[in-house]
């Protein structure tokens, strides 16, 4: 193991709540490589990286940089030693401009104040040098996720990072954006940077990584050369069993129309069109997928369906089982038998301090199933929670554990469990497996199919092409707020072909698109 650029020896991390996230982990990074770390949700990947970046202190063990023992007490220590990190969750200040985010902590000065022009110049220079196009003066809150990702990488590079840690950088990117990122990473590698890459998408790992370290339940094993292992082998090592990536989904006759969106147009605050003449139906027992590059109308569409209409409906109608829901609030919409898996589990999907049980019952506490009158039956809640935790394989210490302590994937399982457990007639699933490991993703997919088979109508909005092509019975593509394609046989559509519609290069004729509306 000598000659390693960075080495972690027997590193153990116990969080103050008693969770042992890493146990005697060994990790070694060679100069100039792209090194993948894979593992299930909660395997301890992020924790390990945070220690490498000085954000968490190891409880035990040592870190060596170029053979020399180092103590990384703060991110500044790590930055000083040429380590940069792009975090799983964005580490940007939304109200700041790109340039301000770039220079935060190392501001160029003119007199007492910040030299803003210099900050902009520095940003532009970095942007040119690494071929990552960003607008220095744009406010970060207005950027797309892909843009934010670039800012994050530039931030690290600006600080002179030679070792770049990327924690699930592709989880929120479209295939095209991912491709672009990979080109940039290869460029960085050529320029002498060393990269640690964390992802749940094994295809990506195979595509750009030289070596791979697998983590399981807080422990690590020696690294493999990526070329020596197959995707199947990796996933078996990660999960401890074989993972099937194809689902045998039987064909099913679709039932009556549940959700009907007809000629729906939506105007935004600045007079812009968010949606134009969108029409489709979702029938009982079918999964309708909506594909599209993020920012092409998916969010306003889902908002309109879930009672938080942001803008003015200019025309058209949205009905569930015949009832107009456009002006109803989410409570009323849910009463029509609608369930909703939100895109942002931290903001809407869960209450972090509350227990798993409390998070599981939020959509059915009032139903009468959990106790009559105004009281709730603690025993029933506990039993329901326990059974859902078991059925959805949520890794936790019990129903009373605060959900905020769970890893991202397990938190997502709680959200899915809750939304599936109310026997919905319509499920709106928005990015249901974002940031979720393959084991858990597969599990969630199974649950969605199961629900469909029981006659539930499902609207699936996802940026993950693989997922959307696998699961959907019918598929729509949104581009700039319009439906540009409708496929009745998604499994027959290739990713490349789909990409052309998503980027607005191809467009079907109105008649084909019109078929999306049944009856």
């Amino acid at each position: 193991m000598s000659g390693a650029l960075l080495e972690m020896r027997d590193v153990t991390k116990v969080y103050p709540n008693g969770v042992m996230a890493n146990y005697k982990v060994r990790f070694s990074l060679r100069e100039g490589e792209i090194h993948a770390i894979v593992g299930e949700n909660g395997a301890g990947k992020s924790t390990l990286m945070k220690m490498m970046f000085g954000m968490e202190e190891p409880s035990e063990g040592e870190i060596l940089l170029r053979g020399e023992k180092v103590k990384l007490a703060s991110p500044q220590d790590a930055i000083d030693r040429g380590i940069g990190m792009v975090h799983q969750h964005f580490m940007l200040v939304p109200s700041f401009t790109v340039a301000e985010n770039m220079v935060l902590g190392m501001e160029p000065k003119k007199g007492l104040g910040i030299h803003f022009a210099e900050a902009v110049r520095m940003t532009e220079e970095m942007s040119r040098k690494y071929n990552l196009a960003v607008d220095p003066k744009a406010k970060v809150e207005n950027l797309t996720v892909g843009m934010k990702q670039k800012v994050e990488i530039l931030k690290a590079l600006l600080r002179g990072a030679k070792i770049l840690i990327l924690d699930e950088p592709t989880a929120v990117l479209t295939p095209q954006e991912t491709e672009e990122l990979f080109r940039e990473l290869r460029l960085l590698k050529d320029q002498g940077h060393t990269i640690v890459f964390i992802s749940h998408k094994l295809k990506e790992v195979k595509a750009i990584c030289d070596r791979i370290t697998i983590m399981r339940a807080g422990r690590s094993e020696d690294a493999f050369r990526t070329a020596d292992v197959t995707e199947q082998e990796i996933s078996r090592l990660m999960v401890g069993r074989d993972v099937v990536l194809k689902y045998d989904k039987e064909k099913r006759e679709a039932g009556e129309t549940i959700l009907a969106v007809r000629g729906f147009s939506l105007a935004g605050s600045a007079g812009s069109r968010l949606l134009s003449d969108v029409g489709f139906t979702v029938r009982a027992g079918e999964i309708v997928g909506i594909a599209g590059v993020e920012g092409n109308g998916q969010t306003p569409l889902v908002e309109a369906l879930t009672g938080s209409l942001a803008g003015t409906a200019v025309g058209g109608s949205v009905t569930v089982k015949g009832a107009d829901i456009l002006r109803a609030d989410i409570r009323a919409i849910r009463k029509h038998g609608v369930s909703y898996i939100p895109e942002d589990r931290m903001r809407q999907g869960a209450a972090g301090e509350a227990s798993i049980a409390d998070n599981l019952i939020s959509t059915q506490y009032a139903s009468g199933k959990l106790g009559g009158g105004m009281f709730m039956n603690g025993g029933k809640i506990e039993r329901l929670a326990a059974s859902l935790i078991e059925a959805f394989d949520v890794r936790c210490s019990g129903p009373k554990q605060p959900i905020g302590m769970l890893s991202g994937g397990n938190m997502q399982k709680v959200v899915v469990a809750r939304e599936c457990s109310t026997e919905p007639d319509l499920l709106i699933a928005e990015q249901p497996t974002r940031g979720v490991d393959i084991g858990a993703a597969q599990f969630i997919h199974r649950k969605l199919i199961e629900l469909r088979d029981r006659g539930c109508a499902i609207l699936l909005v996802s940026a993950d092409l693989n997922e959307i092509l696998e699961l959907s019975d019918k598929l729509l593509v949104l581009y700039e707020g319009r439906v540009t394609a409708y496929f009745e046989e998604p499994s027959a559509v290739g990713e490349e072909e789909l990409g052309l519609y998503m980027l607005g290069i191809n467009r079907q004729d109105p008649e084909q698109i019109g078929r999306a509306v049944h009856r």
Partner: protein
Amino acid sequence: MKAKYFEPFRTLAVILIALVIAFVIISLVSDRPLETILIFLWEPLATKGHIGNLIEMAIPLMFTGLSVSLLFRANLFNLGAEGIFYFSGVVAAAIAIHASLNGFLHPIAAIAAGSVVGALLSAIPGILKAKWNANELVTSLMFNNILFGVGLYILNYQLRDAKAFSSASYKFEPTALLSRIWPGTRVHAGLIIVLVMIVAAHVFLYKTKWGYELRMTGANRAFAGYSGIRTARVIILTHLIAGFIAGMGGSVEVLGMYTRFNWVSLPGYGLDGALVAMLAKNNPLSVIGAALFLSYIRNGADLMARLSDVPSEMISIVQAIIILLLSAEQFLKFWKNRMLLKEARKHG
């Protein structure tokens, strides 16, 4: 030692350290520091009368502590218990003076009136917050002063007994007074009322649907709204309940401890209630302990000032140190981390 015993251990250590610091400060001004600190620690529990004093002082603290803890639970930073406590006291006093009812109904009517008025007044910042997102901290702080002014006006112009030679109301009808429940002390029926309220609040918060809505709204309002909880209604309801309890506290205090209404300044229980709520981590049942604890150190301080040569103002310094240290979560944490690692290694 096991990690799970850390909290009690830390609390003990903190109290010991706070006492040592208090001892050092007392030594600076007292000739007999040891005797003085023993008075502080022991005297509040030394006689039946003193225990009674401790409990009777804890009653209003429990009321406001409970009220504030519900607000804090719903993530509402409202410090309005102070003004409501005062104003409801005025209302209860008015009924205690002017109504003639029997000894059973009279206090009930007075307390009910005070509580309902408290609830209605509290709902105003609640509605402003829920409907227009007006900052509840600002409105509640302002309301404290407004309610005090109006209450004092009512006292001086409507309730004042000129023969009391001061800003004191007419004497309450004897039927209105709360009965003493522990002979030889002034501990009154308010204790039973507040304990019932605390248990009710506990049940409400953890066993009912409304309580669940309140907790979820407090934990993450976006999540609650997404789940279908009408958060605006929850916020108003929480304000109503909190105002009801604070108002009840003011009414009970007036009828339990006084024979006339004579508050010419805000009694200070609102902010103390915030202190109690924070010490109790916003848990209704823990409010009992937190209120008794605060009452204990305050009574100890009074007695120390009375029986020794330490000026009373010094006590506020000692109190501040105890509060600062007691809630210092990170204090001695390194120790806990060591214990955790040891345990983890054993299992790992």
